[in-house]
């Protein structure tokens, strides 16, 4: 069993935490994981991408273009930006949330993003993750809502495996909130 995925969005959206949970879940299944992430300058509201590879063997933390079978996009437009990493026909889970880049006239922001992705042949699931997280009282858990939705599509790991991984990644007060966000997304 092997595969790869990308997680993308905007700095500060909890992309690293979400990829940590995925990695923990996969490790618990006895798989190897390699993952690369962006720190430093890119966290100041810039575009962010994480690559993740898993399997009985996993060497390169970076993917090749045309390789990833899955994408989780935390912001709509960023899904388009990283399509070159996707395999033809890959599965895309995209947050319906749109965040306009500062200083850019709003009419430059693309419209009909899910349709564009579908027309290009990707399997698209749109999740109102940010809306749902606001209902839960904290926009920061939109990442777990998305992960919950992704966990239904992704062939590895059952509900318990995912929740165990969340337990490993969070502790204290935020743990419960993250678990409910995950369940909300998975429902």
């Amino acid at each position, binding site marked *: 069993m092997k595969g790869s995925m990308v997680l993308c969005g*905007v700095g500060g959206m909890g992309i690293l935490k979400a990829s940590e949970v995925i990695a923990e879940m996969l490790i618990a299944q006895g798989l190897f994981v390699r993952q690369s992430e962006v*720190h430093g300058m890119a966290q*100041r509201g810039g575009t962010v991408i994480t690559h993740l590879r898993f399997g009985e063997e996993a060497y390169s933390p970076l993917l090749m273009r*045309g390789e990833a079978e899955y994408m989780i996009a935390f912001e709509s437009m960023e899904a388009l930006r990283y399509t070159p990493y996707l395999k033809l026909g890959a599965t895309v889970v995209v947050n319906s949330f749109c965040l306009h880049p500062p200083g850019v006239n709003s009419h430059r922001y693309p419209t009909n993003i899910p349709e564009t992705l579908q027309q290009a042949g990707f399997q698209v699931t749109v999740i109102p993750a940010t809306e749902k997280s606001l209902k839960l009282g904290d926009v920061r858990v939109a990442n777990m809502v998305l992960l919950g939705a992704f966990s239904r599509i992704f062939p590895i790991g059952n509900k318990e495996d995912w929740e165990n991984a969340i337990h490993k990644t969070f502790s204290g007060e935020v743990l419960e909130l993250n678990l409910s966000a995950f369940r909300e997304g998975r429902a």
Partner: protein
Amino acid sequence: MEMHRAEKRIMLGNEAFARGAYEGGVEVAAGYPGTPSTEILQFLSHYREVHSRWSPNEKVAFEVASGAAIGGKRALATMKHVGLNVASDALMTLVYTGINAGFVFIVADDPSMHSSQNEQDSRNYAFFAKVPALEPANSAEALLFTRLAFQLSEEFDLPVMVRSTTRVSHSRGVVIPGVRETHPVRPYRKAAEKYVMIPAFARKSRVVLQEKLKMLQEWVEETPLNRIEIRDTSLGVITGGVLYDYLREVLPSLSVLKLGVGYPLPRKKIEAFAEKVEKLVVLEEIDPVWEREIKSWGIPVRGKEIFPEIGEITPDTIVERLSPEKKREYIDLSTYLPPRPPVLCAGCPHRGIFTILRELEATVCGDIGCYTLGTLPPLSAMDTCLCMGASISLAEGIKLAHQELPVVAVLGDSTFVHAGIPPLIDAVYNKTPIVVLVLDNGTTAMTGGQDHPGTGKTLLGEETVRLDFVALAQAIGVPFVARLDAYHLAHIRETLQKALAARIPAFLIVEGLCQLKKKERAVPLTVEDQWCLLCGLCNTLGCPALLKEEEMVHITPERCAGCGVCAQVCPFCAMREVEVR
């Protein structure tokens, strides 16, 4: 944090470096934050058996750690590639004196400059200083190699470099943590011939160093860190670091000589490998360091004629250059997207000051830190940014060339402590009439918010003496010193004008806590449409909370930090606090 069970864990490269140092029995660790190296020391500070500390700069960190090793405790220094420039003065001679207990320094390079001002290749320092250098490929090796580096250091009585890159430091991989070695503190003996590098002793030490290198040469031929893997012999690749992992992934059938030691090179092993394969290439990032050395032995090898010499090499590059038929098909929907570069945060205390400097048409010598995010339009905040602390000295030079220009140096609090004090002394000593602005946001912001001498807290969270910038400037003898509030634009403007008009060295400390450090959020603002005449002035602030639509300016309430800078800039008083119901 003790872990006794051999348990598989996933670790960030930098966490694995810290773990390796911990297991290797490190007792003292020092560094200065710098992407991609910062987290090493932060992770290490969680191990309370280790004395970890931030130093004002890499030279101090390197010397404190060297001293601890000379004193008899295993010690570590961490830094990014450009930090090694600062520490290099100590390094170049420490290889002469040698150490006592193990001394290791980890230096993290940044090919493609994800978060750096250049992409220098630290392996050059290994060759230059004659210091053994290890090249881990991933988290597991980061742990193992760092641990081993301490033994190696003691075995050869030399400092040892462990070289990382962004993709090693900031990627996760599986590791199996072990237990910590403990070593009694070695006795310290006064040994002037060994540790005092006056010419007479240094000449002897130079010869000793040569003997150590000869022994090291035998070791590199034997060590399993340099590993030959024979598969398809039509092409053999000599590589190291994360590039090995890329190659193993995308072209697993090739024969490889994996160099775990980047300096010195195992000449015999390389010759033996060259014999076994039909064609030989060197796959290395940035400079052709190994290629040059191998070519100098007369071995036919290709490297930079195939692979790029600029920027990082990715799995895509490797496939493209060695086996283009393996390229995959993909669809690119990114072509017409607007870019999303990093920007100063909403509420950032630097925004107001840059607006005023632009208005005064000052020549602004910037420095290394978050404020470089104000370089691009609309803030267009800077004329120069070279290296840590250079804002003040470059400003002095520009003033010497053009007396008529209003020249201002702008640097952060952490950068000022790092390398800004000697040039400030210079400006006073030589009476250069420049204005130095220290933007004091109470942290080392760009690297994620680390403490420094100006914050009054140590890496371990202890309270300590807080460096008083005003008292320091007064002690240096700066004739014009003022303390300002970063969010009070009128006062800043007035003081700045006075300082420029005075034609004497001036030191203004502009205080405003980093937005990411603020515990409470102020009330967000809103634009009252009936007052807004769409003049666009607020949009020249480059604030991510301000959005210009076709017929209106809009403030995103979730992003607005309520700093009030836009309200101070708006000539029509259209910004108001959102009414709290």
